[in-house]
């Protein structure tokens, strides 16, 4: 697993209080991991802080699963 993926998982485990085993790439924040809309906003903000990467709102709206978050961050970090 990439360093980015591990950091994303850690943030999700910390903020949503879920087990790491539940944080699979397919897992949806709202449907599978119990997040409400505010939790999702907080997650995006935590990603922004952790990776020092502003995520525009229209992009943030598309990040609904663990896999999509990792994919977005891997694509944009260091560019």
């Amino acid at each position: 697993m990439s360093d980015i993926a591990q950091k994303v998982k850690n943030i999700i485990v910390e903020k949503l209080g879920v087990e790491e085993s539940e944080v699979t790439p397919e897992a949806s924040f709202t449907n599978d991991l119990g997040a409400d809309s505010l939790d999702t906003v907080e997650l995006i903000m935590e990603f922004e802080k952790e990776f020092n990467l502003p995520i525009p709102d229209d992009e943030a709206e598309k990040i609904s699963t663990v896999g999509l978050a990792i994919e977005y961050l891997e694509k944009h970090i260091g560019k």
Partner: protein
Amino acid sequence: MTFKRVVVTGLGALTPIGNDVTTYWNNLAAGVSGAGPITKFDASKFRTQFACEVKGLDVSQYIPRQEARKMDAFTHYALIATDEAVRDAELNLDTLDKNKVGVIWGSGIGGLKSFEDEMIDYAKGDGTPRINPFFIVRMIADSASGQISMRYGFRGTNYVTVSACASTNNAIIDAFNYIRLGRLNMCVVGGSEAAVTKAGIGGFNANRALSERNDSPQTASRPYDKDRDGFVMGEGAGSIILEEYEHAQARGAKIYAELIGGGMSSDAYHITAPHPEGLGAFLGMQDALNDAGIAPEEIDYINTHGTSTPIGDPQELKAIHQLFGEHSFKMNISSTKSMTGHLLGAAGAVEAIACIKALEHQLVPPTINHFTNDDEIDPRFNLTFNVAQARPMTTVMSNAFGFGGHNAIVIFRKLS
């Protein structure tokens, strides 16, 4: 119309001298101080470096971590004290008509630390706001009553009263009115405060309200003593289940006491200083007696506002003397803030509980830390100095006054 009667059927306390009602009461009766050096932040550069903090609390035992992190400490305190009160009242949450159960809570400030932390964090950045989405809901004072309602499904009247250090007594009086009018069967009332923070201590230091007796925290809160030099900040919560009398009887509830009167007034004088003749305090206490329909001589004990400030203490006694005359020397008076410190918006909550337990045990908790008589204070007052006093009591009064000139007073009576 005939008013319904309102009784107390459950109590919960989280205080600097005990994290439950029994421990709190035992320490009140024993004259224990809750003061100590501030542990919640580095106070070494503050004029006041001590407070009455809540001790040894593991929030996760009461609130799952995931929920807890979305709340300020003052909401944690509210939920924890209410947990005890609801258990104490032995409510059957399956059969209770929860649409007729309200929550009216008091807090003077709300989520001060949440505000402070977020803005300190913001100030460290480059000006781009990255405000946490839970910032507002942690901070706003009404999150306490909202969270209580969600935990139990209480869908009746729900809000928070804000009148500084009178907040909880305003909450109690509002609930009293709704229940006696038949609008609610039951109401969770109380208050919580968590202002032992940089902003809280620094702010009250700046207006010179706090004691600065850093060399002796445990003797710093000394209401009515000649050398009192300000209040000691306390924190915590008190929660009380108020219930319509027949509703309580029908479910066989244990009844602690009856709430028989509430009085309110305003000094209309100054934003921090009390009226020099205690006019607002006088009017508020008079209003409470009128509401209860009792004579001044029926009050056996007053738990005063008595914060240990040079100006406030004698003015409240002046008002008591003016209203009660000779009887003011026959009743017992004490300030339990000498032990708990001043819980600001939650003061009325923990002091109402002190009054209710005093009635139950027929014991007046003391005003500790009395060393030197103050010439400004008539020695004929029985201020219950240093040691608790046993006396037969039927009716007790609890005073709470707040910055802004708010006065709110409640009267409890042993059920006859």
